[in-house]
């Protein structure tokens, strides 16, 4: 493949190469990647938005550890929790047409409508019995994010380990591990998730996430294996082996750093898949169960009231979409940054600059 992709040094290509090499002169691999990533506008914006969402969600609803009966709570800055029921507030926030629990958030300033900007008592409204919806959404998002990160972390760890071992040692080890991977792969994630979730959903979100993570590593293992298969044939691995490096050292010091790109990219895809899978499972009733909340569960509970109180439906959905969208864009940026064949779009201006540069030199 690589010799097919090698470009001949002709005309425009030469100029483009010149631009590329001028940009990366004197930088380490890591710096080049970072630079490419930072330049990917959509990815950078998404990164900031995602970090903002995470911090906002975590700080708003606070953290709960320990058992359900006797939780250790780190309080957040929001005044209501998901167990506070405030029917009077719900009525206070009622809208004109008799529907209760309307959002009090108003972002249109005074010159558009009379009320002006305000957050109010229940910015996202309340649900039917008067629970503050902002608290519910924040708690749900926290759960969904937790699942996403645990599944991602576990999937990446297991997938990398299995893929690396299979790819590096080859032979019978590879054959056995890959057949095992196929066995897991034949089982759709949602099927496994439903089986697990139906039984273990009531245990809380963290055990559920761990169990889901055990069934989410297959795609990544395949990617990593392919990468290891090509990398282990490279000269630098031979050199390391001749120098007396152990298998462990070769894997961790020589091959893994070179495969990190594909791992990170596949990992981000896993993350966005995980949040969608968790919400889908909760929606079907196989994931997080009431009284706990997750974004999928909120949508499933209030989908029928869309006509009357649409805010109960919009907010959790918007959060899922924005989290998944951010993760996807970050993954795209990372792929561009790690892919050595990927070059930045060379604009006409860059091209003419390079032309001048090379003609001056000639």
């Amino acid at each position, binding site marked *: 493949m690589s010799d*097919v*992709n090698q470009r*001949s040094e002709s005309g425009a290509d030469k100029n483009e190469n010149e631009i590329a090499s001028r940009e990366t002169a004197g930088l380490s691999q890591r710096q080049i990647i970072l630079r490419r990533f930072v330049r990917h506008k*959509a990815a950078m914006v998404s990164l900031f938005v995602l970090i903002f969402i995470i911090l906002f969600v975590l700080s708003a609803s606070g953290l709960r550890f320990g058992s359900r009966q006797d939780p250790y709570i780190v309080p957040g800055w929001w005044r209501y929790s998901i167990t506070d029921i405030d029917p009077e507030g719900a009525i206070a926030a009622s809208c004109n047409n008799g529907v209760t629990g309307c959002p009090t958030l108003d972002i249109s300033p005074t010159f558009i409508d009379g009320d002006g900007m305000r957050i109010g008592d229940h910015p996202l409204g309340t649900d039917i019995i008067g629970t503050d919806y902002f608290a519910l959404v924040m708690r749900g998002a926290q759960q969904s994010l937790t699942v996403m990160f645990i599944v991602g972390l576990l999937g990446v760890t297991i997938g990398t380990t299995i893929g690396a071992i299979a790819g590096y040692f080859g032979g019978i080890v590879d054959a056995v591990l890959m*057949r*095992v991977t*196929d*066995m*897991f*792969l*034949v*089982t*759709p*994630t*949602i*099927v*496994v998730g*439903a*089986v*697990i979730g*139906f*039984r*273990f959903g009531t245990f809380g979100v963290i055990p559920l996430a761990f169990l889901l993570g055990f069934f989410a590593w297959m795609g990544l293992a395949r990617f990593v294996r392919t990468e290891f298969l090509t990398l282990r044939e490279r000269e630098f691995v031979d050199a390391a082996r001749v120098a007396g490096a152990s298998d462990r050292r070769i894997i961790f010091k020589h091959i893994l750093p070179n495969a990190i790109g594909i791992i990170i990219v596949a990992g981000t895809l896993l993350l*966005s898949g995980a949040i*969608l899978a968790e*919400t*889908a499972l909760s*929606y*079907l009733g*196989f994931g997080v169960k009431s009284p706990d909340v997750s974004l*999928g569960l909120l*949508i*499933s509970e209030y*989908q029928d009231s*869309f*006509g009357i109180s649409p805010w109960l*439906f919009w907010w959790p*959905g918007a959060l*899922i*979409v924005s989290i*998944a*969208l951010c*993760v*996807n*864009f970050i993954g*795209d940026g990372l792929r561009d940054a790690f892919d050595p064949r990927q070059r930045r*779009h060379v604009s006409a201006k860059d091209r003419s600059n390079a032309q001048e540069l090379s003609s001056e030199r000639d």
Partner: protein
Amino acid sequence: MMLVIIFGASFLAYNLQAYSSDPLSEFGESTAENRDYLIAKTIRDLQLNVPPPVRYFSWLRGIVAGLWGNFDMGLTRFDVPVTELLAQAIPVTIKLVITSTFLAIIFGISIGMITAIRQYSRFDYVITFVSFLLFSLPIFWVAVLLKEFMAIQFNDFLVEPQFSRTTISVVALVFGLIMAGFVGGSKSRFLSVMAGGAVFAAAVLSYVSLTRWFLEPSLGIFGVSFLALCSAAIVIQLITGVEDKRGLTAGFGTAVAVALLYFPLQALMPASANFLNVLTVFVATISVGTLIGYMVSSIDRRVYMRIGLFTALLATFPVVIDRFMAEFAGYMNSDAVRGRPIPTLGQANDLLATEQLENFWVSGLDTALHLILPTIALTLISFAGYVRFARGSLLEVLNMDYIRTARAKGLSERTVIVRHGMRNAMLPLTTILVNDFAGLLGGAIITEGVFAWKGMGQLFNDSIINYDLNLFMGVFIITALLTVLANLVADLLYGVVDPRIRIRK
């Protein structure tokens, strides 16, 4: 090898489900007098005293017995044979996913390839953003939105189906922008295409609004002719390009022929028609198209016959759709529908009268209307993946040396992209396509749940809720077989479409 994988996976699934389900839990709080008896009966019926790994083999025996004819997947907990339920459910699921899969493939690949050709254009950025957005949408959320806006509000709109001026101008402008994005080119061309598209859309919308088209939809001879000419233009552009006079004659000749056949073909589609009639119509037009292709050419006949064939195929769809539309007014005003044609739930209208059910056109229309929402939802979700994949694939191919060679030897840009680029870019797509067919069940579980279809996904849901192990395994084994077979087909197909693979082996 395949069998080993299926064996391992089914063993895994069986034990997973067996250990995580507890059929006795429903008796936990039971106060019934015969509680002990019920518990004992459940244990005996489900063989709960046998440990799951052992019980698995008694299940397997029924499957293996299929080799000599008496296939047995066991009974569900309500004593219905699993095979019977599966036989009912599989066609439903296939019906649900097949249209959306085709639509997603066709639109996804064509739009993905256009973005690759216009890499880094504004169009590319917009489509990239849209596909990422669709990628991040949970299908159940989309489904609820669709139900509200496409079904409930659309049905309300049908009471007085007229667009306001604002709606017409906004939609026309958006349509013009999309068209201009497709065509691309210089600024003046962009603007003229946009203006043309907007005027066209505004004209169509005004016509639809003024004639209350939605209440009695039909394409008529003019609509059919217009769509036939469009199909001819697309097919010609893809196969020979407009420079080839014979290609033009073959394509547009076929389009005109289909339009002329519009009235004669109606006789082939009477009220008592069935599926065979539709097939006959297609065979008839395709033969005419192929014949025209044969007649206009003297050399390279296959190319022109292909133009005729594909033009006729595409152009016949409007003719058949027009026939279905003719039944719409009657369907909509019938007692079962009462003027709300787009349903939010279910796979068929249970209230339809017998003569309506027996009428191929009416029942077909009913199915089509029930399919609209799930199809849109599934298409939107899977469309994004194809766009990204087709784009990446074509970009990679366009960087190859043989593309440069093709350009260097003076081939037209169209030939380079269509013949040398797109064909090669389609190769890796075959793998994805086949694998996607296998992965459809995962999507179907959610979609069937949201739209209340009674297919494989519903069976699966029931099996988990009722701790129905045999049913669960029945659904599972179908999926697993499908996945493994799909992989096999993908490997074989890849060898067929890409000769390099064969040589290497």
